[in-house]
């Protein structure tokens, strides 16, 4: 087998593909996840084998906790990078159907938190973003909204028809969450900082997915309420894909 020639068209295309930003990052994450997985498994096994109440057991448990934290950070960065990958063009979906399904799915969580989840979707035109991307982004957004909401408040989800589709999420954050969009404060406890970061990662992923598909985002707050607006590009009705049921594994 001869070595591929770099001066050929195929060689150039291969080289261009091989030095693309996202595949390289994907490879780096893969390389990073290998030793992390090894460490996690090794420490978990050592912990299983170590004697109860021994000093080494406490040390192994502490080391495992640190590795778990690194794994979580790695996964969050990876998710952010993957959200930034270019979206597939030419796909579309019915936003109202997607929203209705997600609001139904998350209503029990809202009820458990004593938050009202209100949907007002008068936009019936398809938007120019794939169903899977929309589902993923909206789940992140609603998950974020439910997490930061104060009890006995309401989350209003709107999809209005204009020149393009305007998707709005109106949330009343809890007092302890009011600084959620501000930079991390040193006065916060590590756990609170992690929760806040996890929350902002979800919002960033949703934003990146939608912006990658051509949406425009802006946020503002007034009278204790947070408003997230997305201008989503509309698609012609002929190209709209039916809402596919969620993926189910074979039995």
């Amino acid at each position, binding site marked *: 087998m001869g070595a591929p020639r770099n001066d050929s068209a195929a060689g150039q295309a291969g080289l261009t593909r091989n030095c693309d930003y996202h595949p390289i990052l994907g490879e780096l994450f*893969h390389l990073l996840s290998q030793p992390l997985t090894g460490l996690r498994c090794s420490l*978990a096994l050592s912990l299983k084998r170590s004697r109860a109440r021994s000093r080494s057991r406490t040390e192994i448990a502490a080391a495992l906790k640190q590795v778990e934290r690194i794994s979580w950070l790695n996964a969050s960065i990876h998710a952010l990078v993957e959200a930034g990958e270019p979206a597939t063009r030419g796909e579309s979906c019915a936003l109202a159907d997607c929203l209705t399904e997600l609001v139904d799915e998350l209503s029990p969580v809202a009820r458990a938190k004593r938050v009202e989840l209100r949907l007002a979707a008068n936009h019936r035109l398809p938007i120019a973003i794939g169903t899977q991307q929309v589902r*993923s982004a909206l789940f992140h957004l609603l998950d974020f909204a439910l997490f930061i909401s104060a009890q006995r408040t309401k989350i209003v989800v709107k999809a209005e028809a204009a020149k393009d589709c305007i998707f709005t999420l109106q949330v009343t954050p809890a007092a302890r969450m009011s600084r959620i969009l501000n930079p991390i404060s040193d006065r916060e406890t590590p756990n609170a900082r992690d929760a806040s970061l996890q929350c902002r990662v979800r919002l960033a992923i949703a934003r990146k997915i939608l912006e990658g598909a051509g949406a425009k985002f802006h946020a503002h707050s007034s009278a204790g309420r947070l408003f997230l607006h997305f201008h989503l590009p509309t698609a012609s009705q002929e190209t709209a894909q039916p809402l596919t049921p969620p993926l189910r594994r074979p039995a």
Partner: protein
Amino acid sequence: MGFLDACQKLSGSRFRSRSFFGKGLSFCARTSLYLSCTLPNNQKYPVFRGRIMRILIAEDDSSLASFVRKGLEAEHYALDVAADGEQARVMAGQFDYDLLILDLNLPRLDGVSILRAVRTRKPSLPILVLTARTKVEDRVQCLDLGADDYLAKPFSYSELSARIRALLRRSHLPAESVITVGDLKLDRVERRVERGGHRIELTSKEFALLEYLMRNAGRRITRAMIIEHVWNLSFDTCTNIVDVYVNYLRRKIELPSGPRLIHTIRGVGYELSSHGRAAE
């Protein structure tokens, strides 16, 4: 003495020697005896039709493969490791395995090609794919090609172990349309749930969750597994959506005064079982 040292290291035995002036040396050896014996019925050893379950791990990272191997051997599985794709394809084709754990990034032959080749020859072999990629599209591709489950790196050992148990159990069960646990009955075709003859109304998500728990009855299921299988999401959520749905399900299927069916396993997830168990 060097020979004795070597024996000691290899077998894990303990040797002691004493010398008596004018009488020579005396040796004392303490070693462990490994006996083949029938295990008591209450022990959950991974045995199917009288033989230990055999798993093939296709993983090029030798240290990771070694950790996984050690962990699974401690759980009494028989393990083989293939360090490259070609070797994995040949081994999976020639030998009889109960499960294949397949890393997608393998030298010589990539995981996707192995998946295609193995699925054609052995349609019923359960395959668990390991990869660093977590995008829904990648998961869909793997599942479409015939993988039975998907675990993103870096995974925790307990997660891997739980998924293996769930896959092995599922693969040896006939694909029944009606699943029964105690007096709880779920009909997958008619989408009907009954307990003690009384019909229970569930939403589609509650039904999917109960079906997943019942298919894995008696096994610990992590929250991540539930999120992936029932909600089709590959990331953690900020909210406690799994716990909320489990709570709803409990209220519908459990009797206020009766024993619990869905047990919480602290720090892990849930287990559905008709037998009462100590809280963990």
